[in-house]
């Protein structure tokens, strides 16, 4: 499924409980563009999809003169982001289509990629499987094992990088922070920061993996804010 086909702009569609707001997450396009220097995502066998990744679009801020329109009298109730839904397991999540694209997907999983003007990027993988296949805890090493092209994966012991808590879609689960080495086609290796979270609703086991260059803490922090918004937007098939 191409990224374009998956982009369903549901602004105002109000199909289910939504997180409200102008919903650009905490990742501001300008900051992303200027901040992200290093790193390209870990590819989960989806190199062909990289060309389809999105370029962030600058959104002009509202001006005090009312350039955004008249002062709202009634609330703007729901403004959704782009929705991706698993045809196999029924779960869904939202992501900002201005910043991320689906570079590969199946009935159970989606790979989101971002490419920035400076060539840097990141990957977020959301994957579902039957809950009977494992536990949130066991899903973490399994997700790490699926990362192709990344070697020497080890637990990230940096105190500031530790994942405290862990879960998906407002369900408690497990999580961990790791680091590894990504070998690029040009033969240049770079270190990658990898964070994996997993949770289950008893029917589906969901794992979210986020990978980015560990070289620049600032952009990585912003990526994590974006990933948090995606993790929190997960709707389980049976509801929260």
């Amino acid at each position, binding site marked *: 499924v191409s990224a374009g086909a998956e982009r369903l702009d549901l602004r105002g569609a109000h199909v289910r409980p939504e997180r409200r707001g102008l919903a650009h997450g905490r990742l501001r396009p300008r900051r992303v563009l200027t901040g992200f220097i290093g790193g390209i995502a870990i590819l989960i066998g989806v190199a062909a999809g990289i060309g389809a990744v999105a370029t962030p679009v600058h959104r002009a801020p509202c001006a005090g003169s009312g350039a955004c329109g008249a002062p709202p009298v009634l609330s703007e109730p729901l403004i959704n982001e782009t929705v991706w839904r698993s045809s196999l397991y029924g779960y869904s999540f939202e992501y900002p289509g201005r910043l991320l694209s689906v570079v590969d997907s199946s009935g159970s999983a989606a790979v989101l990629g971002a490419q920035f003007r400076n060539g840097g990027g990141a990957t977020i993988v959301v994957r579902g499987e039957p809950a009977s296949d494992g536990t949130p805890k066991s899903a973490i090493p399994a997700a790490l094992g699926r990362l192709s092209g990344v070697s020497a994966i080890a637990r990230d012991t940096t105190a500031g990088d530790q994942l405290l808590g*862990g879960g998906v879609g407002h369900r408690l689960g497990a999580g961990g922070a790791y680091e590894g080495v990504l070998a690029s086609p040009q033969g240049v290796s770079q270190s990658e920061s990898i964070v994996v979270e997993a949770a289950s609703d008893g029917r589906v086991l969901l794992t979210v993996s986020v990978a980015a260059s560990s070289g620049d803490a600032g952009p990585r922090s912003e990526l994590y804010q974006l990933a948090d918004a995606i993790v929190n937007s997960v709707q389980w098939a049976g509801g929260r």
Partner: protein
Amino acid sequence: MRRPGIGRPGRRSGALGLVLAALVVAGGSGAALAVLAGATPRPAPTGAGRALGATDPRTIVDFSLVLRAAHGRRLSRFLAALEDPASPSYHHFLGARAFGRRFGLPIAELRRVRRRLRADGVRITGSYPQRTALDVTAPARVVERVFGTRLVDYAGAGGRRLHAPAGSPTVPAALSGAVSAVAGLDQRAAIRPEDVPSGGLAPSDAALAYGIRPLWRAGIQGQGQTIAILSFSDYDPSSLSGFDGQFGLPPATVADRSAPAPLGAAGDGGAAGRQEVELDLEIAHAIAPRATVVDYNAPFVDASGDDTLGTLLDLVVADGRAKVVSDSWGTCELTTPTADIERDERAIEAAVAAGVSIFKSTGDAGAYQCQRASQSDHRLSVEWPASSPGVIGVGGTSLSVARDGSYRGETAWEDTLSQGGGGGGLSAYFRRPSWQSGPGVINRFSNGHRQVPDVSAAADPANGWAAFGGGTLGEEGGTSAASPFWAAAMALVTQYAAQHGVHAVGFAAPALYALAARGQPAPPFHDVTTGSNRHYPASPGWDFATGLGSPDVANLARDLTSYLRGGGARG
């Protein structure tokens, strides 16, 4: 009765580190302040800067001396009775002067303290009718000589030199009957704003989602109410007018009230500081658009430890104008000097006695508030002064609305990867006050200590609040947005109550818990039952992630008025 100090680390720990080492000081509303050896705070592990050497003896040091309560146990009983509907003292509030006369040191004793300090070379720069503390100043060499400590300079942000005592200061024997602690000597315990950029909840959105519109339609928009905002930065008034213009609000009426000299008015608190103040003022004005907002401010750069919060709270109570306060600045409780906590708590007690409700954001790092100061600090921790039993701690949620903008649901705010979330957890110092009870309060995490938050509201920056600053409409969140929201909502509730014959709400926390425990035909709270705050899950009833939940303000106004009109006896 003499009130011993909170204690200092070197004096607290028992030999085995297991026993209660001090059980002292009546906290707000009668909660005892206890320090357990296992909860002994320690300095921030890192981030406080490297030592640069001894402080120049000529450096002028501003700090404060915490005055003992003249009748500590009586004060504790009074504060408890004040919120007990069965007590004859129920809601018999005391103004600042009356509080000072009844629970402060005798005038003769204060005169003796003043004389002694003058003789020692310590200049008194400020005092309060509540008799809670004395603001003082002296050269470093005098501080070291009089209080038996050595001051050391540390490298702070932006090349600033920060001083801190190398050891615990000691109150001289001649003053120990009147002074319980020396506060504000450690400048490393920097007060931090809790504003987080991003979001987009407009005033009308919040009014619809949180049930404020019925009050607005009834003409209750804050008339006659005063909301105090505590701040440590200046702000741009054009941001407020821009916000008002953007959302069609009446012009904000903001009065400035600065800390007395030598502190003086707030200066440049940096972008984050200014953003915080503007957010606080805008949200308070958005929710109670016809209320007067008073900006109680002190300089951020001169904030000497955390005791400046106590200074501002003393000013609020002494002025006697505002019955609701919002504070979105604070410190990690575990790394705040205990003397500073004691200084603040004295001011908070006087505020409770005066019938003031202080709303304080519980912080934006979830169950790990100390991590804001030091990334490697992974201790479960809460924010000061949100953890005071005389303060209403306001946690954070992620709000969802229905197609028509009405309330649909909320989850606890948690951003695991970016280390964000609504503050909540257990105080290391304070016992759980008697009024903190009801469904869910006692749970598997409880240990007898004060639990926060008490309430919560939208704070997730991903879908937070619209805010105007720097000439543009931005998007911000954090519990620092939730706190002024609650303070302004309580101003509306107070106005509604006054129109229905209830002329004082007082410190609202006991009534809020009583309402939640009774169940109401029109529920005053949205109980948040999903999500967590990086450690504590939300659950039915009270929980460590969202407290009692977020308000339906119109329902809360009706229920609280009914409760108070019945003397707290019926709901």
